[in-house]
């Protein structure tokens, strides 16, 4: 299990937990991302930039700080 920030592009992961305040969890939940969600890291921006995720057909970008707070498990 590792932070989402460490996942390379084009890898699929399952979210195990979200270490975050209510705001973060709620906002992610509204976009359909929560514990047990399956997420693909589509791309990442350079210079410690944001990550673009795909979940259930929806594309969402999250800042690095947020990605650091999401614990995931890789799925082959």
């Amino acid at each position, binding site marked *: 299990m590792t932070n989402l920030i460490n996942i390379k592009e084009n890898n699929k992961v399952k979210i195990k937990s979200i270490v975050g305040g209510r705001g973060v969890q709620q906002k992610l939940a509204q*976009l359909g991302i929560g514990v047990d969600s399956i997420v693909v890291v589509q791309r990442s*921006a350079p210079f410690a930039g*944001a990550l*673009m995720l795909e979940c259930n057909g*929806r*594309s969402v*970008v999250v*800042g690095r*700080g*947020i990605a650091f707070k999401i614990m995931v498990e890789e799925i082959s």
Partner: protein
Amino acid sequence: MNIAMLGQPNCGKSTIFNAVAGYKSLSSNFPGTTVQSTRSKIKLRGKVHTLVDFPGSYSLSSFYETDLAIRNHLFSGNYDVIINVIDASQLAQGLLLTLELMDLNIPIVISLNMMDEAARKGIAIDTDELADSLGIPVVPTIASKNSGVRELFMRLDNVVKHQKHLARKRLLCQNDIEQTIDQLTELIQEKNFATAIVSPRFIAIKLLENDEQTVRMVSEQNEDGLLKKAQQLQQQCAKARGKPAETVIALERNALAMDIFHRVSKIGHKNKDWREKVDDVIMHRFWGYVFLALILTGFFYFIFGVGAFLEEPLLQQFTRLESYLGQLLGVKSAIFAIVKGALYGISGGIAIVLPYLIPFLLVMTILEDIGYLPRVAYLMDSFMHRIGLHGTAILPAILGYGCSVPAVMATRILPSKRDKIIAAVIATLVPCSARSIVIFGLVGRYLGAGAALFIYVLNIFIIALTGKVLSTMMPEVSPGMILEIPKYQLPTLQAVVKKIWFRVREFIIIAWPLLILGSIILGMAEFWGWDQILNTIFSPLSWLLGLPKDVSTTLIFGILRKELSLIMLMQAMGTSEVLSVMTPVQVMTFTIFITFYIPCMATIAVLIKELGNRWTMIIIGITLVLAITLALLTRLGAGFIL
């Protein structure tokens, strides 16, 4: 009747609104751009109704300012029916809001929009089955092609007439949670919290979710017993599922939505998407930035090219008209002074403002509608961190290039007050189209495109510096960026033209008459020598900046509307051949001062509303200090370059 249109961001609500209401509202492809509800009268079967387009929201929680505002507005607005617009290609997510709305006592009609998108994804939805499962009428629509919209409104009429909503299904969570909700609902029914719209069940669920505003309302009514019971039930839920009650409820809702989704749709083969290939370039780690720089410079030269091309010949015509009228009426006469004033105001609009304004709006509207702006937030996130903000803060800045008013309003999408303040300062410092017109029409025209570009680049540096200073002074840590990236949409000609027309119309109806009036007043003031009084009062400023004395009055008018300062300048100098009365250095100094100083009246009004009096005064102070300092430096330093 009063109709409320609700739905998640980017589901096409505003497109539907536009289709029936005409040009009065704006739709954009960036979440959070519609920050105010827009209303319009519509005619249905001969009767007139009010349609209100709400900003998009993912839920009815009170955690986010925008969601709470929407909820309160909905509850207090006496609505007879809700149109819930759902993006068919995101049905499961869209249903989350629907499920919340269903707990209210108000009829709903669902507009299942973007059916073409769903088809493209290979998703086929049985709308009858969906309507059956929810007990709510479902009308499939493709708003961008104006398909199904008429049927939607016809259905609406039916629903309210026949009170069909009473047949709506009550969707249940799993038994144990449902029982908990029921218990609390019964207790609430005994009190008198429920209103016409807000059902006891809705309140019960919100209490279990620990909804801030609901908890506050209940404790204000001194119902501590109720709160205690709610807490007890929360613990019960948590024990049963091993998660806090609000998470349990969210999960139940999610499961319900997913269940319905799977029951009513078939997922087939997905068509190959050219859009992913486009994103491979636009959001590329390297090429994405190259593309961004190219797009911005390209658009800059496009706007400048069209504007300069039209400005010269048009102004010449007006100069001819001016001398003709001068001969006709007598150059020294009072009548001529007034007519000349009016002429400057009119020519200013036609020859200076519109040639730059329209290309500018064209560019902004297309970028917005295509869906490029959130991708810019993605690209710029790490750079925004350098000035202490997140990628989302770039939206107010980008909108600021159009007009500071929607830019400041857009700061609502930022979660923390500190972020809002810094973003509002940035949004105000960004040169709006009015200031751009001064930059293009003055510096661009008389000193060349390079000089104009320089001002924009300088502006960006100053903004970055100011942002950095402000964020160092307010070191609060704000939550990171979480932003949905919408699919690319081909902007429809109709939507683009409507939007441009709406903004140009605003200029024609509000700003232009002001321009003409202000110009006439200044003409009269000059004729009778009153302006000298104002100029003398402000002469320390014009002395400091090395500007001609007559310039001071124009700066005052600039607070009203920024375009005024350019027109007024020509009026004050007595000619549109600016270089004959001002040196290049003075032109540069004047323009830089205009670019940075005090936001216009409209912006000040919006700043007061969003941030309060204190911060507005601070922002006015900052801009004034910056303007004077930079103008002074220009005066001293530009002599070397120009």
